[in-house]
């Protein structure tokens, strides 16, 4: 009884560094109402809800229960999924499983975070092993810096190569009214910004944001009745491995390599570079935009810098990456992966307005977690076979 699944509506907040005008439930509600309006559905039409954030950021543990006024979950089946940075993509994959199982026709998926309400670096650090990891770990930036340093040493890349990715994403964010940071920067400005952790400069990394995103999925029985041009989910993949931070292969993202190979196989994609039309990558820092597209097989190991310098991933290029401005412009962590999904959906539906890539057949969205996890979704404008 497995069903094909499509996304029929999306909604997101206008993301800011600080939203003292709303509490968490109210922030969630903004995204939910926008998604319902986009799909032209009412709350009574929703059969189940999947919600997630990185719960110890705000210190609110029973988010699934606590948020019902905002989510619309009162007396509905609701589950919380929390997987760190990958949460936003994981909730989408969870919703896909619920609808695909045939047990629910219409599922509302929510990701949110109010990073302004706590200490993000402290919270991320305490997500790691207390005995072996915490002494020297310093939140997301420290692990990412170690990855970038290893990549640079292995492939001869430079800080300028990373900066070029940041320049791209920050330029793309100018087209997205929902983005938090909308200011173009030059290569020189990135390289002159303070060094946070070698080789990462301030303008190489994402901010912390308050924001929420909601997506509605429907089964093939009703998707096209709700939405004339739904975004079909072709495949998902998820790879999580973490015992200790020292177990990773620094300089390569193994979870991305293995997950994307599964994705291409499931969908029959042979040349992702040619067959994908747009990518919304959970890329919290610039060097990830180099390393991880190599692990996806878009280009070979060490080839990403030249590919990006040649403009291939800019708007109008061969394969635009992060038309929304990506994570470097907006990062409400539990929502961040779901925003990638929603942006990919908007690209497939042709609703991305000023950041629309023409004629999107296939879009890719992903989630990333600081323990070197990757979740991913392949979106398409045609119903899968």
């Amino acid at each position, binding site marked *: 009884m497995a069903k094909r699944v499509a996304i029929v509506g999306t909604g997101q907040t206008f993301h800011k560094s600080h939203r*003292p005008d709303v509490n968490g439930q109210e922030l969630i509600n903004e995204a939910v109402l926008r998604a319902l309006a986009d799909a032209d559905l009412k709350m009574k039409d929703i059969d189940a809800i999947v919600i997630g954030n990185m719960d110890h950021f705000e210190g609110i543990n029973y988010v699934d229960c606590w948020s019902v006024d905002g989510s619309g979950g009162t007396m509905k089946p609701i589950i919380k999924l929390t997987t760190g940075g990958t949460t936003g993509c994981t909730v989408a994959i969870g919703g896909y499983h619920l609808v695909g199982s045939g047990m629910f026709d219409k599922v509302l998926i929510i990701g949110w975070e109010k990073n302004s309400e706590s*200490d993000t*670096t*402290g*919270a991320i*650090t*305490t997500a790691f092993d*207390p*005995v*072996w*990891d*915490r*002494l*020297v*770990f*310093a*939140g997301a*930036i*420290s692990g990412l*810096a*170690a*990855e970038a*340093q*290893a990549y640079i*040493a292995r492939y001869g890349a430079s800080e300028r190569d990373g900066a070029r990715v940041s320049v791209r994403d920050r330029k793309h964010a100018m087209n997205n009214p929902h983005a938090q940071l909308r200011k173009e920067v030059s290569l020189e400005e990135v390289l002159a910004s*303070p*060094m*946070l*952790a*070698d*080789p*990462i400069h301030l303008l190489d990394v994402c901010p912390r944001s308050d924001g929420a995103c909601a997506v509605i999925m429907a089964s093939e029985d009703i998707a096209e009745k709700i939405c004339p041009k739904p975004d079909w989910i072709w495949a998902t993949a998820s790879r999580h*491995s973490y*015992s*200790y*931070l*020292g*177990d*990773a292969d*620094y*300089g390569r993202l193994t979870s991305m390599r293995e997950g994307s190979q599964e994705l291409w196989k499931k969908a029959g994609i042979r040349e992702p570079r040619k067959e994908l039309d747009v990518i919304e990558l959970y890329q919290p820092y610039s060097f990830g935009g180099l390393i991880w597209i190599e692990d996806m097989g878009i280009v070979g190991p060490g080839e990403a810098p030249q590919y990006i310098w040649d403009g291939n991933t800019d708007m109008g290029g061969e394969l635009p990456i992060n038309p929304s401005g990506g994570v470097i412009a907006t990062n409400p962590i539990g929502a961040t992966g779901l925003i990638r999904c929603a942006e990919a959906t908007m690209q497939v539906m042709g609703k991305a307005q000023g950041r629309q890539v023409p004629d999107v057949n296939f879009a890719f969205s992903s989630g990333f977690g600081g323990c070197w996890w990757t979740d991913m979704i392949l979106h398409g404008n045609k119903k899968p076979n």
Partner: protein
Amino acid sequence: MTQNENIIIESGDAIQPFAYSVGMHGSKFFTELRDNRRFMAIKCPKCKKVYMPPRGVCGDCFVEMKDWVEVGPKGIISTFTILRFAFIDPETGAQKPVPYGYGFIKFDGADTLFQHYINVKDETRIRIGARVEPVFSKDRKGSIRDIEYFKVID
């Protein structure tokens, strides 16, 4: 209350109630470190990978590991960063002293990496591939802090 005031939730002088077990593998590691300044790792019988820190199961093969292997104490910097931004250490509630070197050390004989401080007195000597050795604490208690830091020796 003005608009800029936040609700502050404090724990005052309260002590955190966490009391983590390190398990039998962690216990052996810390006992050897404290008493003999030796680094004990463990080898997978199937894939032969030598794990540091030691643990009971090889996640890749999902088999129990029993073969202890002494590694180090010297090794190389596999990757590293130098932390330069100020942040509050959630372990202490105080600002972490920066800059500090964050090293992923590959002990001689080990396959996975051990995280610890790298002395940054001379930053120019810190590079991937540089050989390092541990500087032990004088007063060792059986914790990760029984090593003060690693220093570059080449």
